[in-house]
C-alpha cells in the first residue's frame, strides 16, 4: 500500500492540548497545594480548577501530514449546515440560539442493548480523546480540525450490534422552529446518513462532542456529530439524535436528492469527479493555491482495505 502516505504519528497519540497546556498550571497548583501543607481539603478544588482551565486554542498543532490546523474562527464561521441556511457564513449567527441541552441520542435497531443516552452519560461512559482530522468538503475546499470525542466503535460496543446488522443509520434532529432551513421543502428533512458496519467500526470513525479544546458549537454540529475523515464532509452528519443498526443500506439525504452526484460511499476520490466539478484538487481554507486532493483524503492506509474488490468508479 505504498501509494498512500504513511502516518508517522497517530493523532490519538499526541498529548491532548489541554494536558500540555495545563501541565504548568498543574505543577504550580501542585506546589501551592503542597506548600499549603496539611490543607488536604484544598486538593480537590485545585484539581477542579485544572479541569476547568479552558485551553487557549493555539494554531500550532498539525495533522499527521504536517499541515497546520485551521483557526478556530475559520472553523466556526464557514459552515455547510443547510438546516440553518445555505449561506456558509450565515450559519453561525442563525445557530446561536439552537438548544444543545438537554440532548439525548437514541441508539437502537438491530442491537442487543438498545439505549437512549444523555450526552453527559456518553461523556462519562466513553474515553475522550482528541483527533486532528482533515475535512474535505464535496465542494472542493478543506480544513484541518481538532475534534474531541470518542470512536463510534466504542459506542457500538456498548449496545452490541446483532449479527443481522450490516449498516448504521444516523439522523439529525428535526426542529424547524429552531432550524429555519428545515422549513424549506426542497430537501427531504430530517438529514440522514449511513455507513457500512465495517466503516462504522473503523478506528478513524469518530463522534465529536468537542472542538478546539472546548465543547462543540451549534454551527459545527453540537452537541454530537459524526466525523468520517476519509469521506466527503456531507457524510459527517451533525446534531445526531438517532443511531440505528439496520440490515439494508439506508437512504441518505444527498443521495436521495441527486444519486448521480452524491453516492452512498462518498469516499474522497480525486479520480472520480463530481459530474459538475472536478475533485482532483481542493482549496485548503487559509491557503490561496489549490492543492491536489488525496485518495481517501490521505487516510488510505487505514481504510483502503475496506473497499477491496469494490469498483470505486461505480460505488462513488
Amino acid at each position: 500500500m505504498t501509494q498512500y502516505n504513511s502516518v508517522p504519528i497517530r493523532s490519538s497519540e499526541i498529548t491532548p492540548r489541554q494536558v500540555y497546556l495545563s501541565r504548568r498550571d498543574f505543577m504550580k497548583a501542585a506546589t501551592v497545594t503542597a506548600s499549603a501543607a496539611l490543607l488536604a481539603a484544598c486538593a480537590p478544588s485545585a484539581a477542579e480548577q485544572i479541569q476547568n482551565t479552558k485551553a487557549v486554542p493555539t494554531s500550532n498543532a498539525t495533522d499527521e501530514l504536517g499541515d497546520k490546523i485551521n483557526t478556530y474562527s475559520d472553523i466556526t464561521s464557514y459552515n455547510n449546515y443547510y438546516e440553518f441556511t445555505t449561506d456558509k457564513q450565515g450559519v453561525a449567527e442563525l445557530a446561536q440560539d439552537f438548544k444543545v441541552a438537554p440532548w439525548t441520542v437514541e441508539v437502537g435497531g438491530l442491537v442487543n442493548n438498545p439505549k437512549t443516552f444523555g450526552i453527559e452519560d456518553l461523556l462519562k461512559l466513553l474515553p475522550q480523546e482528541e483527533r486532528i482530522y482533515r475535512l474535505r468538503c464535496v465542494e472542493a475546499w478543506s480544513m484541518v480540525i481538532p475534534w474531541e470525542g470518542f470512536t463510534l466503535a466504542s459506542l457500538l460496543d456498548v449496545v452490541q450490534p446483532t449479527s443481522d446488522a450490516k449498516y448504521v443509520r444516523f439522523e439529525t434532529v428535526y426542529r424547524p422552529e429552531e432550524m429555519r432551513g428545515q422549513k424549506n421543502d426542497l430537501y427531504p428533512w430530517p438529514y440522514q446518513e449511513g455507513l457500512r458496519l465495517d466503516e462504522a467500526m473503523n478506528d478513524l470513525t469518530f463522534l465529536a462532542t468537542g472542538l478546539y479544546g472546548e465543547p462543540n458549537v451549534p454551527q459545527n454540529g453540537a452537541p454530537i456529530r459524526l466525523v468520517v475523515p476519509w469521506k466527503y464532509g456531507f457524510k459527517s452528519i451533525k446534531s445526531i439524535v438517532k443511531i440505528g443498526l439496520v440490515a439494508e443500506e439506508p437512504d441518505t439525504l444527498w443521495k436521495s436528492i441527486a444519486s448521480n452526484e452524491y453516492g452512498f460511499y462518498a469516499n474522497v476520490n480525486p479520480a472520480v469527479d463530481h459530474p459538475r466539478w472536478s475533485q482532483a484538487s481542493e482549496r485548503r481554507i487559509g491557503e490561496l493555491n489549490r492543492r491536489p486532493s488525496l485518495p481517501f483524503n490521505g487516510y488510505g492506509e487505514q481504510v483502503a482495505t475496506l473497499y477491496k474488490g469494490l469498483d470505486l468508479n461505480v460505488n462513488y
Partner: protein
Amino acid sequence: MPPMKKFPYTPLQIAIHIYAWSGLILLIFDAVTGHLSPNPIQDLEQRTGRHAITLLVLSLLCTPVNTLFKWSEPLKRRRALGLYAFMYAVIHVIIFADLDYGLAWSRLVQEVIQKPRLIVGMFAFILLIPLAITSFDIWKKRLGKNWKRLHRVVYFIAPLVVLHYLWSKKGDILSLQGDIVKPLIYGLIIAIFLIMRFPPIRKALASFSTRMLALLPKKNQQPKVDAP
C-alpha cells in the same frame, strides 16, 4: 444671476452608476480589509458572478418597463447595464483563471471542456464579447439592421448564464430538490422578461398599458407658467 447649468445626469443614470460601481468598490474594500469569507477566492468568484447576472437581468428589464409604463428612458440605459454586466463577467473570468487556477492553462482547459457548467459559462462569456465591442454608436451605424440581430443574442446568453449558476449549486432541477431557489428565481424573471418581448404579447401588453395609463390623472402635463 447667471442661469444654472442643467445637471447632465438623470436620477436613473445616477442610480445605475452608483449601483454598478458599489459592488466592485465593496468587493475591493472587503478584500483589502480582510472581510472576504474564509474561502476568499470563491467569495470573489461568487460575488462577481452574481453582480454580472443581476446587471444582465436589469438590462433585459428595460424593454418591458418601456412596454408597460411607456417610460422610454430605460431604453437608453441598456448599454450601460450591459457593459457593466460584461465588466463583472470579465473580472469573474479573470479571478477564475488567474487567482483560482493560477493560470495553469492545461488544467484549466481540461476542467473547462469536461464540465458542462464551465462550458456553458465560457460560451456565454465568449458570446458577450462581440456584444460589448459593438455596443458603441459607431458600430450601431456600421452594422445597420444587423446590429439589432446581433444584440438579440443576449436572449440566448441570459438562459445560459442561469444554467451556469444553477449547475454551480448543490441541487437538482429535474426533481426540484436542493439548493435551487436563487437560480430558479433568476431563471423565472428572465423567462418572464423574454416572453414579454414576443410581438403578440408585447402588443397586447402595450395596448393594455395604454388603456390603464389613460385612466390615471394626468399630473404629468406641463403646467402653464408665464415666462419670466
